[in-house]
């Protein structure tokens, strides 16, 4: 199968970040890392490609920088990457992002598109659904397990109570949750091979997409600090109070 995996480079979550005071956009350093949630998508893509003797292409939109995060995914084993880095897309909303990614995916050709459920820096969580709609293919979302059954793809969709069994014939879009598969660590050989894998850097215009940022961030406010927890002094009956609290929280 021809697998296309949507990936994103984000600032290293372990490093402090800053917002641009005028635009409120995240200031992105030259060296970004592969979004941790995307590693599950890449691993799922590699697994499917290995089972079907297929290929894995990455598509990514955002400032290319040093391409460090893209190379991480290539070092895991993906075959090539398309990176759409276009200053006109700065601050693009999710629909604009989906349009651009859809154009890149269509140009690559695909049987399956895989994405994480949401990016760690943006968290809109709607881009894969929009891609499925724009591609006019079924969406198999929130997969905690993916199986190829003959010519169909069957997933277990994570729900609050368990999972739904959902299946569709390719072409389709799958979103995977963390834990769907255990991502492999890139090997040294993989890292060296990634150096020479093709990374195609294009603008939105080259993909035939004319789109502009459809949103403006008006203000960013700090989330309210969490209230201090309740300290229970044990005078012999603390366990009763703890049980009561757990019952109130409907944990037990």
């Amino acid at each position, binding site marked *: 199968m021809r697998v296309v995996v949507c990936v994103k480079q984000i600032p290293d979550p372990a490093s402090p970040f800053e917002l641009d005071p005028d635009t409120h956009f995240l200031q992105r350093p030259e060296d970004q890392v592969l979004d941790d949630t995307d590693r599950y998508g890449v691993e799922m893509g590699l697994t499917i490609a290995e089972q079907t003797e297929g290929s894995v292409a990455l598509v990514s939109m955002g400032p290319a920088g040093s391409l460090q995060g893209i190379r*991480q995914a290539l070092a895991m084993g993906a075959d090539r990457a398309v990176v759409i880095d276009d200053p006109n897309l700065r601050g693009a909303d999710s629909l604009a992002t989906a349009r651009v990614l859809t154009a890149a995916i269509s140009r690559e050709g695909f049987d399956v598109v895989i994405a994480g459920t949401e990016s760690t820096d943006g968290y809109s969580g709607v881009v894969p659904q929009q891609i499925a709609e724009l591609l006019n293919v079924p969406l198999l979302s929130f997969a905690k397990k993916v199986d190829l059954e003959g010519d169909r793809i069957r997933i277990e969709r994570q729900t609050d109570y368990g999972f739904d069994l959902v299946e569709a014939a390719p072409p389709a879009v799958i979103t995977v949750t963390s834990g769907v598969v255990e991502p*492999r660590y*890139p*090997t*040294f*050989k993989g*890292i060296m091979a990634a*150096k020479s894998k093709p990374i195609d850097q294009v603008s939105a215009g080259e993909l035939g997409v004319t789109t502009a940022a459809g949103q403006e961030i008006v203000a960013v406010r700090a989330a309210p600090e969490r209230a201090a927890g309740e300290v229970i002094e044990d005078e012999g009956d603390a366990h009763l109070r703890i049980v009561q609290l757990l019952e109130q929280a409907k944990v037990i």
Partner: protein
Amino acid sequence: MDFEPSPEHEAFRRVIREFALAEVAPYAEEWDRTHTFPLETVAKMGDLGLFGLPFPEEYGGSGADFTTLCIAIEELARVDQSIAITLEAGVGLGANPIYQFGTDEQRQRWLPDLVSGRALAGFGLTEAGAGSDAAATGTKATLDGDSWVINGSKAFITNSGTPITSLVTVTARTGPDEISAIIVPAGADGFTVEPAYRKMGWHASDTHGLVFQDCRVPAENLLGERGKGLRQFLTILDDGRIAMAAIAVGVAQACLDDSATYASERSAFGRPIGSNQAIAFKCADMQVAVEAARLLTYRAAWLKDQNRPFKQAAALAKLYSTEAAVGATREAVQIFGGAGFVDETPVSRHYRDAKVLEIGEGTSEILRLVISRGIGLPI
């Protein structure tokens, strides 16, 4: 002059750091406490290609340079020395002699499993009566028809008794003033692996004494040239010294990281202990030692990678780095106080583990001898 690591070296360092934090750090305390050799983790290191880093692809290796191996060893040692020495010995003392001195048949037979981490090999040089004085080897091997018959014993042999140990290369007297190296497969008749030592540290590393009683192995198990066993092993030890230095750099770095964090968080007399010069300067000295050790170590690795003479550089790196590591663990425990003496903090484990770095693969004293001779002194 350029000390900038390549982007690939940096990317690899990040992978190993991540691996060490996810696959080793959460379990290191338990392995230490229960003296567990972590087979599953060794297998994962094998999957990651670590045991084959410096070997050519034809044997399943990665064809990486020695610097890359040192990066892996350093990052593992930053979390746990036992797992780092398992890799260091597995590559440097286990597979390397076979690769350096083996015949094509020997390489084909043993290397693929060693390189993939499916098997480990030991390096039997040291004896109870022949440590620094390796030439005093008492183990004997005599040629009987088409077999070597080996009698004697070896001491402190790393990776020699794991469930996946496939062989031990041993040095033995094969004639007057003649020491040769012979491959002894695990389970050979007359080859006994003694119970594991009770050690001060490196509890998750596998170390045994070995006994050979009329142990018979095929004549073709001679490794390299007859009579060159000692010289071969001294060559192997030059590589090993750089890798041991890399362990030391990792340990010292861990002590610096932990000490700086603890000195900032721990308060006494109403302020962080790190606001006292007595504590802050310990951390400052530690960073000087870490950086100096790292430079010596990676310069020695670089010389080796450039195929330039590195014997002196390796001795300098091992001597300085291991003494720096032992010093760093001592000061880290001091900064942690009582919390550093109990086994609830990693610094306690680092302290117990570090001492042997000044002993294994060339004691500090032997290294000073090597260095003095390298300077040209009549010693």
